[in-house]
């Protein structure tokens, strides 16, 4: 790969990364924090009998 191509590639990836973090991930994270949306099931529920999750039929 020529050095100009490499330079363009790095710029492009940098641009993608900025879009990814600033405009997608961080706003989503703040939104979930404010509205208390849980994306992982980390709760321990001593009352339930099982933690097995049925795999949905395809």
């Amino acid at each position, binding site marked *: 790969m020529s050095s100009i191509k490499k330079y363009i590639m790095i710029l492009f990836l940098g641009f993608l990364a900025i879009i990814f973090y600033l405009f997608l991930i961080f706003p989503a*994270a703040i939104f979930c924090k404010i509205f208390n949306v849980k994306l992982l*099931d*980390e*709760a321990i529920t001593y009352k339930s*009998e099982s*933690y*097995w999750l049925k795999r949905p039929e395809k």
Partner: protein
Amino acid sequence: MYIIGISALYHDSAACLIQDGKILCAVQEERFTRIRHDGSLPLNAINFCLKSNNLSINQIDYLVFYEKPKLKLSRIISTFIHYFPNGIISFIRTTSRWLGGRLWTELIIRRKLRFHGEFKYSEHHLSHAAAAFYPSPYKEAAFLTIDGVGEWSTTSYGVGADKKIKISSELNFPHSLGLLYSAFTYYLGFKVDSAEYKVMGLAPYGEPIYVDLILKNLLDLKDDGSFHLNMKYFDFCVGTTMTNSNFDKLFGAARRDPESLLDQRCMNIARSLQVVTEMVVYKMALHVFNKTKQPNLCLAGGVALNCVSNGKLLKSGPFKNIWIQPASGDAGSSIGAALYFYHEILGLNRKVLSKEDGMSGSLLGPDYTDEYVENFLKNKKIPFQKIQQTDMDNKVVDLISTGNVIGWFQGRMEFGPRSLGNRSILGDPRNEEMQKMMNLRIKQRESFRPFAPAILLEKVKEYFDLKGESPYMVFVANIVKKKQHKMSTKEMNMFGLDKLNIKRSSIPAVTHVDYSARVQTVDLKRNPRFHQLLKKNFERHGCPVLINTSFNVRGEPIVCSPEDAYNCFMSTGIDFLVIGSYLISKENQPKENIREVAYELD
């Protein structure tokens, strides 16, 4: 039809080639790059698969990747969002790696291999399940896969019937038995995703005094084997470590410094973890049995390498038969991905080898002709002797019985983490000093580590309390009472590593402190050459057992080529090296060929 299965970009990258559902070859990338647990794209492994079958990449019908990178990334992002703002640094670091490569797996593989055919994906646990079921000797069986984490799933079970497999239930991240084991591996000062087996080896020196503490605080375990981890004690979701200060407080001390002294507390923790692991696996297996009513079980995933737990499940579990994928970690998923696509997606027929299995003894890697070996030895001016097979076997068993250690290199290299008699270091199990000597002088590793016995299948009942066979060294069994040596009261009261000095059986070098051994049964069909050697040892010296440990030193992958074998031979205390028909004696080697190797901590 040719399919290449690939597992890569995490750890233990590997590739395999199947033709019409038959596994032709499989190999881990680490064996070529000489970087242990190498997770890079397995280009060398793929090239080997192609070259050894005289194929070019565009004769391959499908490339199948063992997991779905985008689904995995979704788990990483969800985890970050869930714990936000914790873990920003590690998240940016991880996602940068993804944006810079992992997300474009298909593009990169296509470009590097110049592949224009079809590229497909399997799922991480489907690949494990397929690797466990399709090569198994069963037409129908239940399967259970347990590992760290794939995309979301950490554990799954279901049923395989002929060419179809179906996962019925699963446990999702972060609740993972593999990650729990890795967290303790980290806490005990060992390397994660690498040295879990050391914790297992350390366990018999300890007492299970922390079992209640673990069950009460670290996980909520249900009767059906399902569980949730208490994430208050773990850091692997957000940090760069596995455990946190709450964990340290719970066990009364900070993480052990790597390479510092292993005290009785560490051994007790290892033993307690092992007991909890066995408990969880047993409960899970019982649940799978109750749900599926299958007499046969196939196991895969990193936790299926816990041969102590496997041995107990085989001995007292609900299943009549258990078959375990010999490369049950991520490397074996390359086989799973290819077979899953062939049978489940394309719907093509499966041939069941009910007397053995579809793994060909796991001897699926490169081999080297005598001509190649002789050229190598001559080019390097290495003194050697060429000896016919019968004479060679006589000579080797005589050398072993007089206390020599042999590097044994024959035929195709093993696929998976175990040496099964083709890239092995062999010794006399009756020799009391052998365990200590081989650990320190040859393998350059901790003295507590046990060695495994390879035994003629037809003699296994005379030595071990093993149900069936164990050709892939995946079950631990006890030495039969007749061969055990009774301990005196003084010996019984010994603690920790002091137990190492007790002669525990007639084969002390392969008898762990709890009278257990990780057995490999050797049969004529899977490995005739190694079987012949063991038979000769029995005929000449009355012992059908040899110490069989992997041909490598600490921190290095198992040797692949004659060059690797010679380098390893010259950097350790191995006395003789046998490559094919060639015997090489350490005594005759030029002094300048001796290598000093600074081993990498593992």
